[in-house]
């Protein structure tokens, strides 16, 4: 690689998987170190086609897409940033696939730019929080020798992530306001005349919820149906932990705790009209959480649960029919409830 002091070093970050959780942390870190960050574009059909052709067959759809995003950056950057992230909590794990991503990519595609792959897994003894800072400090050396600049970059990056989490995750007070229709947390629903307002909890991995391509634009679809949504990402953490404590077993998949906790909260609180659970085909943790969610919903089925499984073969038509039918079902049941009420008043 030719080092040209005039040109900033380019770091590529694939717009997939954990990018949707940690983008602020990563981008701030590299930019503070004077690097130019290039994020792959939003998922398109072209990226998907490359991904499906390239990725190992047994990987989940979202992991496959990661390969497509990495390929989109291949010839545009000096470094690819693909952290090996095992999880940020002592007791819980993320997804083992995320740890192996960098190595798998490197072994499959020999002519990739150099991959920066710091390893962090809080579950491992040596991986303390201080250890994470040390790793970041060492990684920063590639870009800046000055230790103060590196420390400042780390500090600003964590600050940015903290701010992201704070704006994303709401507290119980805001949740109550949303439940009472005092605030809107996401895109403003397009209400049609004479239609009842619906509230739906949209539950799934951040990389499915926020990628319109893999979720077949479900968010804008719901918006056009006049549905006000809350996502599992936004849920107050204490409520999720409260629900998790009710299970006889400890779910050790960190992301699934968020998903399952949200579903359990709304099954219990009954403050939404319905729950839509987005699952990714061949995702192991999803299949476990999906089954538990279905059982819990069957036990207390007042709030209907729709589970949708996505992969590269998912037909848009069938998916739309299900979503439309689900929204119809909720809307019609509200209409009916209102009719019952007026009948009682008459008596």
């Amino acid at each position, binding site marked *: 690689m030719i080092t040209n002091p005039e040109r900033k070093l380019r770091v590529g970050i694939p717009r997939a998987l954990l990018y949707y959780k940690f983008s602020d942390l990563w981008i701030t870190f590299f930019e503070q170190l004077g690097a130019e960050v290039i994020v792959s574009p939003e998922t398109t059909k072209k990226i998907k086609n490359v991904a499906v052709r390239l990725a190992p067959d047994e990987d989940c759809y979202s992991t496959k897409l990661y390969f497509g995003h990495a390929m989109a950056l291949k010839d545009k950057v000096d470094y690819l940033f693909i952290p090996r992230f095992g999880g940020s909590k002592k007791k819980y794990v993320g997804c083992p696939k995320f740890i192996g991503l960098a190595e798998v990519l490197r072994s499959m595609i020999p002519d990739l730019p150099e991959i920066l792959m710091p390893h962090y897994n809080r579950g491992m003894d040596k991986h303390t929080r201080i250890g994470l800072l040390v790793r970041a400090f060492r990684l920063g050396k590639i870009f800046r020798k000055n230790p103060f600049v590196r420390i400042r970059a780390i500090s600003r990056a964590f600050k940015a992530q903290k701010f992201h989490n704070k704006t994303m995750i709401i507290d119980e007070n805001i949740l109550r306001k949303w439940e009472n229709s005092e605030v809107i947390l996401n895109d403003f629903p397009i209400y049609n005349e004479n239609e009842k307002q619906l509230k739906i909890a949209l539950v799934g991995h951040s990389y499915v919820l926020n990628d319109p391509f893999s979720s077949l634009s479900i968010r804008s679809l719901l918006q056009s149906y006049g549905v006000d949504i809350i996502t599992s990402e936004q849920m107050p953490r204490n409520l999720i932990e409260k629900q998790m404590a009710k299970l006889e077993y400890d779910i050790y998949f960190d992301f699934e705790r968020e998903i399952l906790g949200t579903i359990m909260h709304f099954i219990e609180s009954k403050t939404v009209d319905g729950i839509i659970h987005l699952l990714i085909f061949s995702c192991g943790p999803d299949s476990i959480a999906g089954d538990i969610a279905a059982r819990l919903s069957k036990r207390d089925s007042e709030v*209907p649960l729709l589970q949708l499984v996505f992969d590269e073969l998912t037909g848009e038509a069938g998916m739309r029919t299900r979503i439309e039918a689900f929204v119809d079902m909720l809307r019609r049941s509200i209409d*009916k409830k209102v009719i019952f009420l007026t009948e009682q008043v008459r008596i």
Partner: protein
Amino acid sequence: MIDSKEKYFLGVDVGSISTNLAVIDNSKELIESVYIRTDGKPVDSVQKGIKLMRDQLGEELTITGAGSTGSGRKLTGVIIGADIVKNEITAHALASLHYNPDVQTVIEIGGQDSKIIIIRNGIVVDFAMNTVCAAGTGSFLDMQANRLEIPIEKFGELALQSDNAVSIAGRCTVFAESDMIHKQQLGHPTKDIIKGLCEALGRNYLNNVGKGKDIRSPIMFQGGVAANIGMKETFEKYLEQEIIVPENYAVMGAIGAAILAQEDAMKRPKKSNFQSWDISEMDFQTSGFECDGCSNICEIVEIRRNDTLIARWGSRCRKWDLID
């Protein structure tokens, strides 16, 4: 039969295999229905269906509202000028509720789709559709009837004649077929194989689409496959409940779409968008192209009526969208 003061509503259900039309009056009673094959040409079959309907009812009959449903509902909606375009789950549920207000479960098996709809107190509370597998739907039965050289109409009757169903692997239609061939080669009589096939498909339906669903009586069985009395008996055997097959089982989707059109007309008093009975004489052209505006390379579809562009869709970004 036709009353000039009465209001009439048209429902069109375009599925993968059949195209159904129904005209109901204001009290939701079926006046006339048409059931024809789609034959892979939804536009032609809608035109043909409309012509048949017009021949049966006469041109003077005015349509106050029109609805479309089924997998071809969007296209159909544009062709006939539907006031409401709705999914087939809602349509089937409404039609079932009209025939039996107490119905709690609807089993619907069509050409390539199968569904279960759970209803409580007249409200849909749960539903499921077959996912990536079309095992046990009408088109498979159709194919097997062809292979065995038995008219599909006789399929069910023949199954009833057997009292010794052979076991057929029903998990996947491809394996079911090889299993059937194997059983034939062993010398099993056709009627036993057919009965075995019905049972395998019934089991497959209950284990896939019906998995985890609270199936309660009254149970209604509709869609084209409900014509198969062998399938009805299979469901009765496995569910240990009586299965009701409504008289108009094959056109329930169209009836549902007509009911939706009536509801829609009541909610918003307005003139119907329904084209006219001359749809069959109009010239409809569909064409498509790939948009190269971005790397999504969307497939855009255009629909023209008598050379005028009336609808266009298919782009993710919706920049090509044109409806109305």
